[in-house]
């Protein structure tokens, strides 16, 4: 009793030490379990599964198959790209292109026609070609604005108009994006069929690219020969076709979510779609510039479909020669004589 009393005050501390020791030791010692067996010896281990398989899959009793994925750490990479690199890539591409074009405009100015107008118009794009171009163009502009909204909307527009108005606009944007995509995809397909032959590389392209199409010649004297489409236009065409196909395929994955891909496939589709999308916007800004403000007479070609003969001779000399060779001999023999 005397002993206990003497140790009384330090009793709780002593007990705490024993308990703490016990707690620390217990897991190591108890791997065997109270009955001498270890029920977790064979059990699946979260960290091990993540290391070996990179995600944890199991079985669920509900029809939603994708619910069987218990953990997919790949979402982290998706988030990092989506919120980290993507806005920078998009911002630099779009603003960079606008900056370059502004610079180009102030240094080079509008590319004017050298010789006076001939007053004779020749057909450059027929009705079908113009229809296809403008369907694709209209769809693309809608898709570009609504698409950029997904990346930059919450950063730029939402602080200005508030969350409710921004959400309403974004909801309609999303519907517009989903439905106008079909017009764009159709346009890309028809465009490829219409123009692919005229956009195959030819012997004038290397020279055209070497002199930069004469675009950087401030005296405006350089006009390298070109067929129906010069090398610059061909680059735009192939960017649109390849970019358009990439956007269409990745877009179809998202139009039918989880029909053709699991969650990781969806992440990849979204990543490709967004990246190609912002780059395409930059390319098309350049296309719009050179087709309107940047060059005299360029808009007419796709607007009315006809161009001035001298404009055609300056910009597409080989094409004009071929056109004239094809049409002129037929003109004298105008009335076809019926066979007797």
């Amino acid at each position, binding site marked *: 009793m005397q002993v206990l009393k003497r140790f009384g005050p330090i009793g709780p501390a002593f007990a705490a030490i024993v308990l703490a020791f016990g707690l620390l030791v217990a897991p190591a010692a108890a791997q065997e379990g109270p009955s001498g067996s270890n029920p977790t010896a064979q059990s699946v281990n979260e960290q091990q599964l993540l290391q070996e398989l990179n995600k944890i899959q*199991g079985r669920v009793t509900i029809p939603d198959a994708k619910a069987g994925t218990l*953990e997919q750490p790949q979402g982290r990479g998706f988030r990092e790209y989506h919120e980290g690199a993507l806005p920078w890539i998009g911002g630099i591409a779009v603003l960079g292109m606008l900056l370059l074009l502004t610079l180009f405009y102030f240094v080079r100015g509008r590319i004017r026609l050298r010789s006076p107008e001939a007053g004779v118009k020749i057909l450059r794009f027929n009705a079908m070609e113009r229809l296809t171009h403008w369907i694709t163009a209209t769809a693309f502009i809608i898709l570009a604005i609504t698409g950029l909204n997904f990346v930059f909307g919450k950063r730029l527009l939402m602080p200005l108009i508030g969350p409710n108005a921004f959400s309403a606009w974004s909801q309609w944007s999303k519907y517009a994006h989903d439905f106008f995509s079909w017009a764009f995809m159709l346009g890309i397909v028809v465009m490829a069929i219409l123009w692919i032959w005229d956009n195959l590389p030819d012997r004038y392209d290397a020279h055209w690219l070497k002199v930069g199409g004469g675009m950087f010649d401030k005296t405006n004297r350089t006009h390298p020969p070109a067929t129906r489409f010069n090398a610059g236009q061909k680059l735009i065409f192939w960017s649109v076709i390849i970019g358009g196909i990439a956007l269409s395929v990745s877009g179809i994955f*998202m139009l039918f979510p989880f029909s053709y891909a699991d969650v990781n496939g969806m992440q990849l589709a979204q990543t490709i779609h967004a990246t190609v999308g912002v780059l395409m916007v930059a390319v098309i800004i350049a296309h719009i510039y050179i087709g309107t403000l940047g060059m005299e007479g360029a808009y007419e070609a796709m607007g009315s479909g006809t161009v001035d003969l001298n404009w055609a001779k300056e910009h597409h000399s080989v094409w004009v020669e071929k056109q004239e060779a094809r049409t002129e001999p037929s003109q004298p023999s105008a009335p076809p004589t019926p066979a007797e």
Partner: protein
Amino acid sequence: MARMKFLCDADRCIECNACVTACKNEHDVPWGINRRRVVTINDGKPGERSVSMACMHCTDAPCAAVCPVDCFYTTTDAVVLHSKDLCIGCGYCFYACPFGAPQYPRTGNFGSRGKMDKCTFCAGGPEADSTEVEYAKYGANRLAEGKLPLCAEMCSTKSLLAGDGEIIAAIYKERVTQRGYGSGAWGWQTAYQEPITV
């Protein structure tokens, strides 16, 4: 304030799916939507484990980061909630979520999903607590009534724990020490950047 967390003790889960049923019933969750589900890994093989999984209410939630309309917010109890009025159903949160928590009703034409739905930790949404409009959109608000999530409350083996992170971690640690084994707190490293070390 408490830091609310879920913890599924996989060594106790018997895959009875009562948590799933309780959740569906409590919140009147529509067909095709599962705020909670039980995933069985290595089903039928030695070492099989079942884990009940829903939104883990992550620290620095990935869903909130990728949302293009910023519809997510974190409550003072660290519960991750969202506004169905702002959600546009784009599906990004599902791509970012490590646990597959976000759910979307009404699969319309061309990927037009309805408003996202997910586990609310029985804490409703941005509407006034325990109102009819809150119930219709987000389900019951048990937290406002001082109750914990129903899935965990009625778990028959007490495998699923819900509540303040420190308290449920302490309960789990005590269990592991007593019984001598534990396969860890599933998802904690991913959701809270810290596992439970016993």
